[in-house]
Every structure is written in structure tokens, then in C-alpha cells.
């Protein structure tokens, strides 16, 4: 399998604060990878750099073997790397249908009317559970639903790589199960590579084949869910002292 994304020596410094430092990892084409870490570990900053929102201070990002650091987000999106945001971001005044179409046409260079496959949009809406919400105003949805709308819209850009930033936050257990099913379909049926930031361990452990753990901007562990759950350094980062973690178990 080839690598769709390759991150080498990535560093981001905001003034005196080093948010991400010397980060290396690769993402295999068609895989499902999770990124975890305590708050402030640099997960979202890493996503922002891959998506082009921030320029890295140092290091390089290769998407399908091509440098994409320092490109604009719109260009990176057109190359096939889409993202959803950690905070809720929607075009509040559009209807759900218009919102998803925006994803399908936004990146195309057309001045009059862009063509989009209506059946593809319908299929997407069905997949993401919006099939009965065509005319609902995006701003009137609950924030958890707005995040799902963000996923549907990002999917409409037809990405090869999808970066999902805390998509499950605020969902209840049954909704999480449903979202997991959707993500699995996206990955297995549509062949989209997934990289997921998530605090809900159930999602990470159940979905991802590889997990990358960040702490204070650095990678402290990488491996399968089983390896990660047994990694002492990870347990320490999450729970503090080792003894307590074992006592808890």
C-alpha cells in the first residue's frame, strides 16, 4: 500500500509557544487512523497545517507525493484533502440541501452554473442521515447535527483524504454507533482515507487500525489500538502517575 499523506519534521510555533514539534507520521492510502492526545497536544494545529489554514514553521507535508505545505486551503481541497472543523462551522442561512451542494460546486471553476450530480447529492444525504432535511435551515440544526452536516458537505467535495476533527463531540451513544457505521461505509465503500481526532475512545478504538498519540506537540506513541492501550507513556500522559492507572484497572 502506498502512503497518501506523509508528514516530515513538522513544526508550528505561535510566538513563544511551540504547538507542534518535529512531528513525523505517514498515512496509508485507504486506512483509518486516529490521532489522540490531551488538550493542547497540537492535534487540531496539525490538521490546520495539513489543510493549509496554518503554514508550518518547519517541515514538510506530502499529499500523494506532492508538497502541499504553504498552499491555500482551497487549493489543497481541490487536490483531494477535505476536513471538518473542531468548532461548529456552517453556512447558517443556507438550507441543508444548498449547504451540501456548496461542497460539490465550491471548488469547481465555473462562473455561470456548475453541474453536479443530483443523485450523488441525494445519495450523500441518505448516507449521512439528512434525507428528510432538504429544506431545513442549517443554522436551526443542533450543533451535533451541524457537525454531521459539515461531514456531508466535506464529502461532497469528493475527497481522497478526509480529516475529521472531533466529529462525535456532543453525540449520545446511539448516535455515535450510527456515525461509526457511516464512517465505516465512507472508508470501505467510497475508499476515502480517514484521519480522525477524537476524545471518544469508543470511536478511536473501534474504528482505527492505527493510532498516533500526541503530547505537548510531540508524538509519544504510534501503533494499533491494543499497543496504545498498553503503552505506559500514553497512560501516564492521560492519567498522570503510572501506579494510579494500574490501580484503576
Amino acid at each position, binding site marked *: 500500500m502506498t502512503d497518501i499523506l506523509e508528514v516530515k519534521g513538522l513544526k508550528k510555533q505561535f510566538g513563544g509557544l511551540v504547538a507542534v514539534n518535529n512531528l513525523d507520521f505517514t498515512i496509508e492510502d485507504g486506512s483509518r487512523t486516529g490521532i489522540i492526545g490531551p488538550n493542547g497536544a497540537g492535534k487540531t494545529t496539525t490538521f490546520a497545517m495539513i*489543510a493549509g*489554514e496554518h503554514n508550518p514553521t518547519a517541515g514538510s507535508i506530502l499529499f500523494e507525493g506532492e508538497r502541499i505545505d504553504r498552499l*491555500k*486551503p*482551497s487549493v489543497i*481541497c*481541490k487536490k483531494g484533502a*477535505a*476536513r471538518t*472543523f473542531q468548532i461548529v*462551522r*456552517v*453556512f*447558517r*442561512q*443556507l*438550507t441543508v*440541501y*444548498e449547504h451540501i451542494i*456548496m*461542497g460539490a*460546486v*465550491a*471548488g*469547481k471553476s*465555473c*462562473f*455561470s*452554473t*456548475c453541474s453536479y450530480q*443530483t443523485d450523488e447529492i*441525494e445519495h450523500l444525504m441518505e448516507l449521512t442521515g439528512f434525507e428528510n432535511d*432538504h*429544506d431545513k435551515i442549517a443554522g436551526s440544526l443542533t450543533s451535533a447535527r451541524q457537525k454531521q452536516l*459539515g461531514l456531508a*458537505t*466535506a464529502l461532497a*467535495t469528493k475527497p481522497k483524504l478526509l480529516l475529521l476533527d472531533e466529529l462525535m463531540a456532543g453525540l449520545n451513544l446511539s448516535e455515535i454507533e450510527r456515525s461509526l457505521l457511516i464512517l465505516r461505509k465512507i472508508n470501505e465503500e467510497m475508499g476515502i482515507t480517514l484521519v480522525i481526532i477524537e476524545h471518544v475512545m469508543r470511536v478511536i478504538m473501534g474504528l482505527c487500525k492505527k493510532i498516533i498519540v500526541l503530547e505537548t506537540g510531540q508524538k509519544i506513541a504510534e501503533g494499533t489500538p491494543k499497543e496504545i492501550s498498553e503503552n505506559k507513556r500514553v497512560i501516564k500522559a492521560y492519567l498522570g502517575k503510572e501506579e494510579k492507572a494500574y490501580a484503576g484497572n
Partner: protein
Amino acid sequence: MELAKNNPTLINKKNIMIWATALVVVVAVSFVPVIFSRYVIYVATLALLYAMLTASYDLIFGYTGQLSFSQGAFFGLGAYTSALLTLSGGLNFWLALPLTVIVGFIIAALIGSPALRLRGSYFAVTTFFLAHFVYLVFLNTDKLTGGPMGLRNIQPPDKLWFIDFSQMNVYFYFVLLFTILVLLFLYYLIYKTEIGRRFVAIREDQDLAESLGVNTSFYKVLSFSISGALAALCGSLFAHYFLLLHPSQFAWFTSEMIVIMTLVGGAGTLIGPVLGAAVVTFILELFRYAPELRFIIWAAALIAILVFEPKGLMGMAKRIRFRRSQ
């Protein structure tokens, strides 16, 4: 069947009502010069001119969501460019007019490309000083613009087929009316096509739009440039209607008035800013008997409007319609 609902066509029941209302308004407005005195025609012409200006401003503010205070500057640039092209350049007005629009577009693009890298209030402040800068240029380049003495001897538009603009002011009124209709139609087109969709996306959430592949810097500059070009068009018409230009006509207050009129009408509603301009112009004229009190009363009224109806006249209309439907 769901698709039909989401693809509004030009002709359906709701739209027929809107078109009918629009037709009645246009016909009614067309009769103003026939019925009323020269003074009323003057006020009505002024109102139309401001309506065009606010319409041009609505593109960058209402649709693209960029608060700008420089619309008066582009208005002035258009006025002086057109006046100088005909006065010093000896061009025919009907040649100077499109040239002015092109000049407006280019200047707006040149200024917009760096300025629109700033966001929100930073951009707003930049445009505020741009407007003042342009005003100072008009005031201090005596040799070109006449400086504080103003620019005189501007000629009315040249003859166009059989219409002689020097003879009748009324014709000018119709030229403006026609231009506004063309402008609104242009806006309707922009709004309905993919360009308008992107403008709205930028207004709603710039970062999200960018992440979905919208080249936000390009579309913001495009919006600013079209908006500036249309303001320059208004300026050209203004110069050849009033025949006398003075820098004070394009001071910061003009830009501010355009913003206020747009807010009173309701930003981003196509027709709202046009209404707002008409209402504000007439209200200000009504209070002409008390020149010192005029702006105090107006300021109080403005605060009241923004407190009670922040979405302007169109917001009010929407609410009333909503209440009736219940």
C-alpha cells in the same frame, strides 16, 4: 420532486406576485416626473442615485459580508474620472461612461487585493482611511481636480439618438431608473449563479468556504471590484447630472450615508438597500426646514430603527408577512 422545490424558477405563484408588485412600483415611479414639480423630480433623482449607490454597496457588504466604508470614494473616483475624461480628454460622455466603469473596477481590484487580506473591523478601518485619502487627493490636486474650487463646466450627457439631455432633466431620471433596473437584474443573475453562491458562502463563513475549495481571496476582490465599478458608474452619472463637482460631496460622510441606507433597508436583500436609500433621502428632505436639527432628528431615528428592527425595512416586511401567515 424534491428537486423541483429546491430549484426556484423565475415564474411561480410567489414570484408572479413579486414581479407584479415590482412592475407597479416601476410604473408609479416613472410617473413622478410627469406629475410633480421640478423640486420633487430633483429629490427623486437624488433618491434614485443613492439607491444605485446602495445597490452597488450591497454586493460587497450584503452579499459578501465585508463591511467597507469606501463606497463614497469609488463614487467620487467615478465622478472625477468621467468629468475629467470629458473635460480634459474631450471624450464623448457615452465613451467616458464605460471607461469610468473599467477604471473603477481596476482601482478597486488594485486596492482590494491587499486590503481584503484583512478581515472584519481591520478591513473596515482600512477602507475608512482609503475614503479619506481619496477625499484628500481630490482636495489637494488643484491642477487636476480644481481642489477646493471644485470642477465646473461639466457638460450634460451628449445627444443619444434623439434624446437631448441638455434640454430636459427628466430624461436623466429615466436613465437612472433604467440603470437601476439593469443593475438589479445583474444582481439577480449574480445571486442565482455560482458566483453569488460563493459570495454568500464567504459571508456566512469564510474559513469554511475556503476549506471547501472556494478561492476566497479571489472572490472577495471580485466582489469588491464589481461593487467599486458600479459605484464609479453612479459617480459618472452624478457628475453629468449635477455638472459641478466638489471634494466635500465625496467626503467620509457620503460613504457613511451609503452604509446607513443599506442598514435601514436591510443588507443582502437585493431590494432593501434601494428602498432604504429612497426612504432616507426623502426623510432628510422633509426636515430641510430645520437644517440644524435635521441630522439630530435623523440620528435619533436611526438609533431607533437599528434597536427595534436591526434587519431594516425588509426585516420588518418579512416579520409582518410571517405574522399574517400564522
